[in-house]
Each structure stands twice: as C-alpha cells, then as structure tokens.
C-alpha cells in the first residue's frame, strides 16, 4: 500500500472517473443504466460523462471534486467518490439532473420519461447533511491492495469534519453486488432499507430489481 499515493482527483483524471462511474453503474453486469434508460451507446455515455464531469459542478456523483484516486508510479489505480448531500444548498439529484438535462439530446428525455415509472420503484432518496458514498472502482491489475477501503477511510475523514451534529454515512448498492455488500458489512455498515421491484421489465434497464441502503454512524 505504501507505494500508492492518495490524492484528490483532477480534470486530468476524467477518463478514469468515467470508467469508474460506468463500471459502478453496471455492478458487475453488462447493463449500463445510462445506456438503457437514455437509449445511448456506451461510447456516447462516455462522451457525455466526460463533458458533464468537465463542468466541475461540486457535491454530486458527477463531480470531479467528489473523487479521491489512488495512484502508483503516475498511473491511476482506483477511484472512489463521496459527498455531503445537500452541501451548498442544492440536492445532488438536482445537480445531476441539471447536467443530464443540459448535455443529453432531447430524444433521451422522451425515452426516459416513458421508463421512469418502471425504474423509480428502486429509487432511494439521499439524506441531507449526510455523507453519501458514490461510485468506486479498482483497475484489475491493482486489485487485492484494499484500495477502496483506504480511499473510503480518507474520504470519510475529510468529509466528516465539515458536518455538524451526528455524522452518518450512507451507501446504496444493488443486492447482486455481493462483494460490495460484504465489504460494507465488514466496515460496520448495516442494511437499513431494501427496495425491490416486482416488475420484471426493470431488468431491461437496471442491473438488478433490488437495491439496498446501508448506513454507518461515526463515533
């Protein structure tokens, strides 16, 4: 681990951050919700994500500033994002929605509007003034170095200082993502909510029909 440098992401890391977001969305499957919901190819999704990240909007899952990266010999090995929900007065969902609205073509919205009532069954709201853990990814050649655990610890330490009152961390994952679930449970997170859709159509658009919310309260 000593050979890795942990630092804040910059705009130069955008290609890796795009990869991180995409792989996290897929949750180990081939289903990329940005593609299925908006009717885009993966290449188109990558291009739009690059543009959205380049806007450097803060405090959302599409913020460069929300990410820490682990780097070895100048090569980015892993990335993880987290933010304080609602910091700055805007919900992260609205910030993300604004970016999507601004960059995606009109036909994407029309398609998404028809699908929204299917996928919202597994939607879980973000809790204001809490730490939300977002997308994380480790490049294959750098796995088994516990990089996500290190990034997680550094992110939480840096964010926790800016929260007044009880410091709570949340993470949302699809239940089929067993490795992530085990990692979070080992780290002291508890599952506090499960959202499941019985509409099989959801599996055309999302990696799973079941999502869980995990919570940890910092001492």
């Amino acid at each position, binding site marked *: 681990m000593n050979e890795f440098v942990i630092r804040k992401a910059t705009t130069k890391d955008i290609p890796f951050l795009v990869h991180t977001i995409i792989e996290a969305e897929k949750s180990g499957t081939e289903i990329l919700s940005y593609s299925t919901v908006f009717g885009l190819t993966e290449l188109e999704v990558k291009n739009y994500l690059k543009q959205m990240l380049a806007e450097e909007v803060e405090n959302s899952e599409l913020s460069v500033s929300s990410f820490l990266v682990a780097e070895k010999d100048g090569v980015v090995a892993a990335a993880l994002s987290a933010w304080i929900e609602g910091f700055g007065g805007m*919900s992260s969902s609205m910030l993300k929605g604004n970016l999507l609205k601004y960059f995606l073509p009109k036909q994407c*919205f029309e398609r998404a509007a028809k699908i929204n009532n299917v996928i*919202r069954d597994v939607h879980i709201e973000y809790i204001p003034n809490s730490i939300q853990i977002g997308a994380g990814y480790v490049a294959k050649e750098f796995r088994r170095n516990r990089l996500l655990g290190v990034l997680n610890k550094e992110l939480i330490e840096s964010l926790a200082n800016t929260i007044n009152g009880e410091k709570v961390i949340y993470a949302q994952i699809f239940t089929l993502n067993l490795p992530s679930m085990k990692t979070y449970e080992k780290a002291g997170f508890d599952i506090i909510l499960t959202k499941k859709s019985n509409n099989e159509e959801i599996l055309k658009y999302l990696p799973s029909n079941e999502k869980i919310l995990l919570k940890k309260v910092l001492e």
Partner: protein
Amino acid sequence: MEKSEVINKLTEIFRKVLEDDSILLKDELTANDVDGWDSLSHMLIITEIERLFQIRFKLKELNKLNNIGNLLLLVSSKIVQK
C-alpha cells in the same frame, strides 16, 4: 403571465412528472421534501418547464435553483425577457 398562472402551470408539471396529485408548491419547497424527485424526475421537470413556457435555462441558472421560490422567480423573469 400572472404569477398565479405560472404557479398553476408549474404545479401541473410537478404533479404529472412525479405522478402525485397532492403536490403543493411553496416557495421553500425543495427536492428533499418531495418523494421521487430524483435526478431523472428533475431532468423531466425542467424539460417540461422549458417546453411549456418556451424558455431555455442555462446550466449555471439551474444550479442556483435550490427551492421552488427561486424556480418561480427564474421562470417569471425568463417569460418577461421573451
């Protein structure tokens, strides 16, 4: 357009996109107060507002809309500018 008419039209949009006829828009209302107001719904709400009022928002304007009151002011100002 009268402020009341703008509020009525915005209310219709929110109710339609969020599929909730009980939604009442108040100045201090935020996304945290409304179930289902996620990034996708928000995108659809903004798209509908632009379509219905024939206006266009800039990204930096959208990122300052932290409550309905600010949305109402922005929509009203853009209608006047037309």
